[in-house]
């Protein structure tokens, strides 16, 4: 049942990606962007049902295996992007940048073992949900910021300039990227606080510089640096966007790399 719902959801996401490619500044392109958003929302509804079905069958949420981490993050990243696109219409064309990144996770998920995982005793706490939700909000908002920054970068090319011609100017896009990155920073800070509180409860220490904690803190430092640099160096939107890209790479490695290669006790999902 879970797979029966997941595949159509992924199909909707893929079609939304096609609509993003077919979009553009003309009226027809804008209609395709709206259709893409509708497809994303439909895919999200199916994906939600798929995750809920698995949750009910296993008795725990998607927190334990690589497959579960990937499917829940595809869901949350898409959700944050879709909600942001509903609220801020100017974001809709950025689907061309955002959806391929989500597509990478979807392709990875299809290779992962979908079997059930063990729900550790340290996961029986409300802090699991608080920490995870804050982390997903952080990554989702950062992805939106990176999507906007990606448009600024792509407009350096002739094709990109033509495709995104109807979007606001780079200064306005830079401001949009800054707003989402700033919100991401707040949620990342709260995520680290919730994680430290959970670590104190689960392992009797709030911070031990294990690989996941170290990478998460480096990501926080990188985002703090990026926000401060925008304020003090008056960077061009392109430079600022590039820095946000670096932060996203760090965050991506922290979320999807470190937990699955680390041998320390704090291995995130494993």
């Amino acid at each position: 049942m879970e797979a029966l719902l997941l595949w159509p959801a992924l199909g909707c996401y893929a079609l939304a990606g096609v609509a993003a490619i077919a979009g553009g500044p003309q009226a027809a392109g804008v209609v395709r962007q709206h259709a893409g958003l509708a497809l994303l929302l439909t895919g999200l509804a199916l994906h939600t049902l798929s995750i809920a079905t698995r949750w009910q069958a296993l008795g725990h949420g998607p927190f334990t295996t690589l497959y579960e981490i990937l499917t829940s993050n595809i869901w949350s990243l898409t959700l944050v992007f879709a909600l942001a696109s509903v609220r801020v219409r100017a974001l809709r064309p950025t689907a061309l940048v955002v959806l391929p990144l989500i597509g990478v996770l979807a392709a990875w998920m299809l290779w992962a073992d979908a079997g059930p995982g063990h729900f550790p005793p340290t996961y029986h706490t409300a802090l699991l949900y608080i920490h995870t939700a804050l982390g997903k909000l952080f990554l989702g908002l950062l992805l939106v910021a990176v999507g906007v920054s990606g448009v600024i970068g792509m407009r350096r090319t002739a094709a990109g300039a033509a495709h995104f011609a109807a979007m606001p100017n780079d200064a306005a896009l830079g401001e949009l990227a800054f707003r989402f990155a700033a919100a991401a920073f707040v949620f990342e800070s709260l995520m680290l606080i919730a994680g430290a509180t959970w670590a104190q409860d689960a392992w009797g220490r709030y911070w031990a510089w294990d690989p996941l904690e170290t990478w998460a803190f480096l990501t926080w430092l990188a985002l703090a640096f990026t926000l401060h640099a925008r304020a003090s160096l008056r960077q061009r939107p392109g430079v600022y966007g590039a820095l946000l890209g670096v932060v996203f790479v760090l965050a991506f490695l922290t979320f999807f790399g470190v937990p699955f290669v680390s041998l320390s006790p704090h291995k995130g999902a494993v």
Partner: protein
Amino acid sequence: MQQPALIAALLARLASTRLTLVLLGVFAAAVAAGYRDESIAPVALTLVFGALALNLLAAVAVRPVFRRHVPLLVVHLALFAVVVLVGLGKLTRLQGRIELTQGVPFDGTLIETDAGPWHRSLLPQAVFLHDGFDIEYAPGLKRGRTRNAVRWIDTAGREQRAVIGDHEPLVLHGYRFYTTPNKGFAPLFTWQPAGARAVVQGAVHLPSYPAQQLQQARAWTLPDGTEVWIKLASEDVLIDPERAGAFQLPRVKDVVVRVGEQRHELRVGDSVELAGGRLHYAGLRTWMGYRVFHDWTLPWLLVASTLAALALGLHFWLRFRQQPWSAVEAAPSRGTGDESGAALVLRAPLES
């Protein structure tokens, strides 16, 4: 240069946001270096924390933006409080490890300890004992919840009982005792030296179970210096890895005691006469490993860090409210060239 002017110039340099950027970069480098070589981490992080604290205080003192934006001031002061609290915590905290035999009170002695130089130990007052535990296992020997019954005498002299485990530590006199996956079986012995009436009681903590279920043996030195080797006689599989189960004592509680070339198999209640005295096997119990942690700064750290994050959120919210999202969206497109902000009036984000 006049002294006040010199101080003002120095403060201005210390308050530079460009210096903040440099220090954030150095901070990242210190974290990465400390991760690779733990020995340099305390010094490197202390230096960076100190420099950032100076930079932050100087900025608060001289930058008018902090007087115009109170939430931003709160963010920075709360961050400073976090730095101070982390430092104080390092100086005053204690972390360590104990192993406790079922039914035997904790005597304040740690197996491993890492205490700050300003820590004043109240551990001998944190007396408690554990009355056994229940641990469930999923197939594949995957550990489930731990429920550890403990009791202690409170300051009013009343006996208190609780069940701790996983997320619920026992907190006594500020010391937090957390159960760990480290636990096992503890044969209990009494030793009566030859010709003496006094009896000494002791327990042998066999290696952690089920992690080391095939090595349930341990060497032990008796009070007279005799080396003995203790082993559980039963080699039964107590937790079937193929199915769900629970930690349990073996049905057969016999132990093997080897002294040199001599081998004795003892049932509960049996004794063996050795050259220096009589060794009596009193029974088989469990032992539990606990992590001990004491840091009075914990609740204040939570308050300060949460305040910093929420104040930052409020600062951004107030700032973004001044220029609606719709105004940002409605900025004219006209290509990529307009990066100066001329087409869209952007306020300086974080500084004056």
